[in-house]
C-alpha cells in the first residue's frame, strides 16, 4: 500500500468499501482513471522512433566531420533513418481503433497535442531523411547528380533537429496525461526518451558500421553512447528518488527487477563496461568488433525494456485510485 500523509478526509470514516488498513477514502478501491490501451506496437514505436531520432542526430554529427570514415558513417545513418521512417508509420497505424482513418491525423496541426505535433514531426523527418538519401544516391552516382537540388545543405541539420524532436516528444506525450506515474515524470521521462533514443541510435549505427566494414568511427560512436547512457542512468536513479511512492509500479516488484536487470545493468552498465574494456585492453580487431556488437545488442534490448516499462507501469499506476486522487501538479 502506498504511504500517504493523513488528510482531513481521513477524519471521515465509514464510507462503503473502506477498511482500516486502506490509505484513504475511495470508491470500493475502484480505479479512478482508465488504463491506456497502448500495446506492443506503441512500445515498439516509442523504441524505434527514439532510435530514428537519434540516428538523425548522428547523421549530422558524422556528416560534419572531416574524417572520410565518419562521412561514410553519416551515409549509412541516412539510409538507416529512412528505413526506420518507413517502419514507424505502420506501427502507429496498427494501434488505431480505426486504422483506415489514420489520415485524419493530418487534418490539423495542433500545438496543444503532442501526438499531433509528433505526427507532423514524423512526416517532416521522413521528408528530410528522404532528401538526404537522395543526395547520397546522387553522390554515389546511383541516381542522376542533378537530384542533389532536392537536398540543400540545410537538410542535414534540419534532420538532426527533427530527430531530436521525434526522440523527445514521445516522452512529453506520455507525461502530459493524468496517469500519476507519467505526470510525476514530466521532466524525467522526456529527457530519458532523448538519452535512451540517442544511446540506441549509437548502438544501431555501431552494428551497421561494423557490418558495412567501416569500423573506424565505432570508437567515437561508443564514446557518444557512453555519454548518453550515463545520462540515462543518472536520470533513472533521480526519477526513482523523485517519484517516491508513485514510482512503485515502475521500480518495484517484478517489473522493477526487469527494469534493473535489462535496462540499468544489462542495457547500460554492462555495455559501458564492455566499451571501457575495448578502449583500455589491447585485443584483435575481430574480438573488438564482436565486443562492440554484443554491447550494442544489449543497449538496444535495454532501450526496449525501458519503453515497455513506461507503458506497462503506467497502466498499473492508472489502476491505483489513491495515487490518482493526488494528481501531480
Amino acid at each position, binding site marked *: 500500500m502506498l504511504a500517504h500523509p493523513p488528510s482531513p478526509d481521513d477524519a*471521515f*470514516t*465509514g*464510507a*462503503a*468499501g473502506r477498511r482500516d488498513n486502506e490509505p484513504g*477514502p*475511495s*470508491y*470500493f478501491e*475502484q480505479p*479512478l*482513471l*482508465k*488504463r*491506456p490501451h*497502448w500495446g506492443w506496437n506503441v512500445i515498439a514505436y516509442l523504441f524505434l522512433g527514439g532510435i530514428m531520432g537519434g540516428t538523425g542526430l548522428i547523421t549530422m554529427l*558524422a556528416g560534419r566531420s*572531416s574524417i572520410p570514415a*565518419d562521412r561514410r558513417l553519416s551515409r549509412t545513418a541516412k539510409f538507416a533513418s529512412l528505413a526506420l521512417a518507413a517502419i514507424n508509420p505502420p506501427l502507429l497505424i496498427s*494501434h*488505431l*481503433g*480505426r*486504422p483506415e*482513418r*489514420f489520415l*485524419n*491525423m493530418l*487534418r*490539423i496541426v*495542433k500545438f496543444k*497535442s503532442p*501526438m499531433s505535433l509528433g505526427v507532423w514531426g514524423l512526416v517532416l523527418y521522413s521528408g528530410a531523411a528522404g532528401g538526404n538519401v537522395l543526395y547520397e544516391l546522387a553522390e554515389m552516382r546511383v541516381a542522376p547528380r542533378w537530384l542533389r537540388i532536392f537536398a540543400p545543405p540545410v537538410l542535414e541539420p534540419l534532420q*538532426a533537429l527533427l530527430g*531530436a524532436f521525434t*526522440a*523527445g516528444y514521445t*516522452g*512529453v506525450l506520455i507525461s*502530459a*496525461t*493524468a496517469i500519476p506515474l507519467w505526470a510525476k515524470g*514530466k*521532466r*524525467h521521462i*522526456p529527457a530519458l*526518451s*532523448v538519452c535512451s533514443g540517442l544511446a540506441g541510435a549509437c548502438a544501431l549505427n555501431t552494428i551497421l558500421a561494423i557490418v558495412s566494414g567501416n569500423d573506424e568511427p565505432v570508437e*567515437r560512436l561508443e564514446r*557518444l553512447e557512453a*555519454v*548518453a547512457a550515463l*545520462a540515462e542512468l543518472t536520470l533513472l536513479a533521480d526519477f526513482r528518488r523523485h517519484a517516491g511512492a508513485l514510482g512503485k509500479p515502475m521500480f518495484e516488484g517484478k517489473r522493477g527487477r526487469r527494469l534493473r536487470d535489462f535496462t540499468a545493468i544489462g542495457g547500460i552498465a554492462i555495455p559501458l563496461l564492455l566499451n571501457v574494456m575495448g578502449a583500455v585492453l589491447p585485443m584483435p580487431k575481430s574480438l573488438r568488433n564482436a565486443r562492440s556488437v554484443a554491447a550494442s545488442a544489449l543497449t538496444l534490448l535495454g532501450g526496449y525494456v525501458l519503453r515497455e516499462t513506461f507503458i506497462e507501469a503506467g497502466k498499473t499506476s*492508472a489502476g491505483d*485510485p489513491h495515487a*490518482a*486522487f493526488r*494528481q501531480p*501538479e
Partner: protein
Amino acid sequence: MANGFFTDTTLCIGCKACEVACKQWNELPSDGLAFTGMSYDNTLRLSGTTWRHVAFVEDREVGTTIVNRWSMMSDVCKHCTHAGCMEACPTGAIIRNEFGDVYIQPDVCNGCGYCVPSCPFGVVDLIEPFKPSAAKAAEYNTATLDRERLSEGALQSHGGIAGKCTLCYDRQRLGFTPACAKACPTESIQFGNVDDLKARARKRVERLRERGVDAQLYGVDETTSVGDLNAFFLLTQPPEHYNLPARPVLPSTHQPAGYAAAALAAAALAVAGLAIFRGR
C-alpha cells in the same frame, strides 16, 4: 452560453433511470448481468458505452454512531471548461459544440486512444472494435429490427473509437432535454444553462446547510487547471467517496516542463557529440 447538468446527490434515489434512458436513446449495448457485491452498483464505472453511472455509497457508521445513510450519485462526463481529452485529441475529432459541450465526432475519431489517459476524471474510453462472428454478420443482413440489432448496429459505427457522454447533442439540437435529465424522477439531474444552474445550486446548498446537511458543490468556482465543470455536482461527502479527484489537474500543464527537459537533454548530447565527432 453553455448548457450543462447540475446533479444534486441529495435528491438521487438510485433508481438508475438515467443509466437506462441514456443507453436507450444513444443505442448503447448493455453491460451484461453482473453482481459485484459493491452495494447496488453493478456497472461500477463510466465507459465508452456507459455514459451515466450511478455510484452507491452505503454508509455503515459515521464516527461512533451507526446510521443507515445512503448517498447515491449519478456520474457523467464533466464537460470541463479546459478539457484534457479535447486538448490531447490529435485529429480534432473532439470539439466544443455550439452548446458549449465537449463532443466526440464519431466519424472523425480514429481511435488513437490518447484522450483516454488524458482525462483527469477517467471518463472517456475506447469502445471495443466491432468484430461480429460470420454467423452474426449474416444475421444482421436478414434480421428484423430487434433491440439487440439496433444497439449492435450503433456499435458497428462506433466500434474502435472513443466514447463518452455527448450531453445528448442530437436531442439538444431538436430542443429536447438530454435523456438522463428527462428520465430522472426526482430532478436530481437538472439540465439547463450552466449559469442558471449554478445560481440554483448555490441556493440549494444554502438551504441544505441551514438544515444541518454538510453540502458542497463540486465543479463550481474551481481554482484547478481544469476549471469549472459544465456538469457539476452537489455532494455531501468528500469527492473521493464518489470516485472523484479533489483537485483534478489538466494534463497539458505538464508540457512546457517536458519540452524544456527534452530540449535540454538533446542540446547537451548534441554538444557532446560535436566534441566527439570534431574530426582532426
